[in-house]
């Protein structure tokens, strides 16, 4: 758990970079710090592991104030991932990954087992990469190593500063999915900086939208999209926020909402869509197909019903707009 209590940071000349922040990140929660560049989100993140000093207030990590702890000890218990991966070019992949366990004095066997486990987690063969150097890896692979390095000593809390920001969109998307799957398993308490609203919606349990060092709204993605608290929030999430919120729902949600039942009739010449696809993708499929309907199928290819733009509109009305009071 990370608790921010009246946290402020004032630079020389009375520039308030962070202005009286109060927020809590619960155990196992994935929270995104979202905002335009220069809003203070990175500064706020770096205050957690004392890379930036705190002018006023207190930050408690796992119940302990960062003022009470030695910064070196504190940092070894918090995973830290940065955008440019920050791998040490002079060390092999194994040495890079195991740097924190090494500082903590783990024995060789324990380190090796941990390395093998983590590499399997991100789908890289440990023996193929053990002795290689960072420059021999692709950007996506380097970033995966950057992530598992932060997880090496199994810290309960992780700080991630735009970790996937430098990757091309296809790789970024894939690594986001991978990381979400890992998070399902490891349940870390994560604070994640992003300037990308789509990434925030996809990844976060909650989003803290920040502007000029203040929190504008701290809510679930759905709430932020459907009930922006003020003009800044609704402007930041964009005019297409209804469309964006579609990526939070899957076709299955729609099937459940309307109790769709399999129509036995065989429809010829139509495309099929899996029920776990997001509604956003479903809409664009429908618009691309120039077809009136797509057949919804489950994992076993059983037909669950047919999807039309009309149906999505109904769902949207019920689920998204219906919540706008």
């Amino acid at each position: 758990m990370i608790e921010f209590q009246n946290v402020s940071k004032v630079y020389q000349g009375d520039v308030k970079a962070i202005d009286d922040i109060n927020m809590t990140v619960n155990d196992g929660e994935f929270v995104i710090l979202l905002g335009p560049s220069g809003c203070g989100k990175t500064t706020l993140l770096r205050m957690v592991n004392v890379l930036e000093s705190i002018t006023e207030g207190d930050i408690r990590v796992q119940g302990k104030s960062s003022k009470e702890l030695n910064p070196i000890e504190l940092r070894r218990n918090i995973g830290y991932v940065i955008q440019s991966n920050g791998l040490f070019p002079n060390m092999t992949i194994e040495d890079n990954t195991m740097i924190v366990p090494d500082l903590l004095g783990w024995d060789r066997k324990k380190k090796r087992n941990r390395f093998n486990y983590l590499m399997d987690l991100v789908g890289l063969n440990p023996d193929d990469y053990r002795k290689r150097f960072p420059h021999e890896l692709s950007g996506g692979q380097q970033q995966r190593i950057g992530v598992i390095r932060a997880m090496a000593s199994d810290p309960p809390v992780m700080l991630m500063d735009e970790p996937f920001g430098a990757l091309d969109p296809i790789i970024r998307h894939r690594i986001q999915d991978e990381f979400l799957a890992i998070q399902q398993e490891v349940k870390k308490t994560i604070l994640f900086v992003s300037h990308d609203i789509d990434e925030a919606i996809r990844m976060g349990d909650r989003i803290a939208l920040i502007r000029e060092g203040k929190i504008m709204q701290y809510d679930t993605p759905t709430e932020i999209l459907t009930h922006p608290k003020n003009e800044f929030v609704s402007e930041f999430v964009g005019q297409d926020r209804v469309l964006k919120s579609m990526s939070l729902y899957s076709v299955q949600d729609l099937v459940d909402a309307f109790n769709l039942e399999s129509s036995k009739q065989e429809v010829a010449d139509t495309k099929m869509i899996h029920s776990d696809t997001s509604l956003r993708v479903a809409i664009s499929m429908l618009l691309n197909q120039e077809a009136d309907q797509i057949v919804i199928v489950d994992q076993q290819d059983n037909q669950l019903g047919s999807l039309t733009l009309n149906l999505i509109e109904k769902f949207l009305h019920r689920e998204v707009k219906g919540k706008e009071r």
Partner: protein
Amino acid sequence: MFTISQLFNYIQSDLGNIITYTIEHAQLVGLAILIAIIIGVPLGIYLTTNEELAETILQIASIFITIPSIALFGIMIPILSNIGQGIGFLPALIALVLYSQLPIIRNTYTAINNVDPNIRDAAKGIGMTNFQRLIKVEIPIGMPLIMAGVRTATVLNIGIGAIAAFIGSGGLGVLINSGISRGNTNMVMTGAIFVSILALIADFLLKWIQKKATPKGIQ
């Protein structure tokens, strides 16, 4: 009249002395570089934490390197005469150490300062102490540049070391010095040739050490 065969004859006849001078020369320069590294590398590293002092120290080191060597030896004679060492090995050693400081300090300072700030940030964020960061990350990454400074200083010192013979430090400068005063071109040539050979060997050796000392990942 100077001919190649005469030169070879001279070298053959005086080989014992020539080798002794070469060894003396190598010892003087080797010791000077060792001391220069022990002073210059830690100083260069320290200066990265103190920008203002860095300016000053680098300027002082630049001034030393502009002083003609013969003048520097001259200055040291009265100073070191106070401890009875006005001429000989000690003043030569001190002069060479001073000349080595600029390339070694400046290269070390630049090497450590040039480490990618993101890498430094990651090292800090991971929980390394300043010392661990230096030993495990910054020095290994800066190694090629630090070693380049040592190589520059070594070659520079082998040249200047020849002039130190004027104040009685021995070495290959003795051949050049007495060759000039006796009008013996063969002696002068031999001295010059062996200085060059020594410089080439030293540079080759240091290049090899540089390669061995540079981590594989950044070669």
